[in-house]
């Protein structure tokens, strides 16, 4: 089964087995504005939960992306370097950033499900 969770830093992670696909939420892309560059990690890199793992550049500013869980990067979405604007168009779909092999699936317990995240976003505006 697939588990979808969100962090309070507006990353989403969709987990099947012990591999999670990570991107940023629709709220995050709206806040960033037009995305013009995404700096992705190298595959094989190990990262701790909360660690800086990627950078999104909008016209306005650079924003760090944090790993929502600990693990090892197993794949990155190379297509984003050619079409960073996909982050604004389909942030939850084709504009995924990277896949990570979770070192501790219990990390997911600290993240929000869709309903909790929607409620969290509602408090921000």
């Amino acid at each position, binding site marked *: 089964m697939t588990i979808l969770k969100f962090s309070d830093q507006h990353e989403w992670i969709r987990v099947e087995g012990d591999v999670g696909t990570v991107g940023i939420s629709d709220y995050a892309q709206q806040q960033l*504005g*037009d995305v*013009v*560059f995404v*700096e992705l990690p190298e595959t094989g890199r190990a990262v701790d939960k909360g660690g800086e793992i990627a*950078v999104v*550049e*909008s*016209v*306005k*500013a*650079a924003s760090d992306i944090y790993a929502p869980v600990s693990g090892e990067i197993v794949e990155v979405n190379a297509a984003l*370097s050619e079409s*960073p*604007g996909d982050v*604004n168009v389909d942030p939850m779909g084709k504009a995924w950033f990277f896949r990570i092999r979770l070192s501790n699936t219990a990390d997911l317990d600290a993240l929000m499900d869709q309903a909790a995240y929607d409620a969290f976003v509602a408090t921000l505006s």
Partner: protein
Amino acid sequence: MTDSPASAPPLHTPLNALYRSLGGKMVPFAGYDMPVQFPSGILAEHQHVRAGAGLFDVSHMGQIRLTAKAGQSAAAALETLVPGDIAGLKPGQQRYTQLTSESGGILDDLMVTSTGDHLLLVVNAACKDGDLAHLRARLQDRVEIEPMFARGLLALQGPLAVRALSRLAPSVAGLAFMTGAFARIDGADCYVTRSGYTGCDGFEISTPGDACEPIARALLAMAEVKPIGLGARDSLRLEAGLCLYGHDIDTATTPVEAGLLWSIGKERRVTGGFPGAAVVQRQIAEGPPRRRVGLRPDGRTIARENSDIVDASGTKVGMVTSGGFGPSVSGPIAMGYVDRAHAAAGTKLEMMVRGKPVPAEIVAMPFVKHTYWRG
């Protein structure tokens, strides 16, 4: 961009309510509550200005009118504070210049237009109170100094700006770049100059405060005109190679270092007579120790303001003062200062971004060709 002090409540321009109603995302800027973008986003706004006509609210900028007192010349008085050739301005001509400090630094940069009877100054929002005090302290015996901070200022920029504004004021089509004239628009007495901050053809329209919103609405009702926020204003001026005060120029940079020698009157380079003239003249003769340059990084990584610029050996030779994504260039661009030895076009350097060197090349500016209407 210069943020306001957190303490004071933000000021509103005459277009605040209109821009909020259009979905402007408001941010604090130079003490004002200003739109950074509209729902279409900065990229679309930028491209719209390059292809159509974009309307910017720049009413936060300071408009100041100088009028000579009996037996005096306003131009001669102002020339004691700026290096530009103001005395040579014919009625209806406009010039870009700087208020300089005794050390040759730049207190502010400004536009000066002669109407024949007056000089009209447009200064930066963040500097306007300081500029006014500076002018009063130095010039009030010779000229009347009238702040017109309640007036509106609209910038209509882009290749279709002339078509749009001509519908309201047919005479503006006859203006050439860096000239101005009075015009009656929507029943209000306005002063229009053919100038701007985008590298495109366009106009700046000084309006009575209460006429600003009706004129803006009349322009926005036209199919080719869209509202543009500060975000696109910044990307447009960066592509045009134009300085942003407080970033690319400030009290620590001279007009010569900033590559603004073109704006110093030829005669004034020799005669001086403005604050810091000795420093400026020495830099003209010997070359400045550093120069403002354009930089194109390889790849798509953006080097932003305050990124170090290093040479092949890793030695710091300069710093980025403005950096971002150029939508019309379709890639990252930057400007900054580098030591004179590294300032030639074609020089390969590196910009440090998040601890990693990004190869870059010094290039001539502007990044996007200016399309001013020179008549």
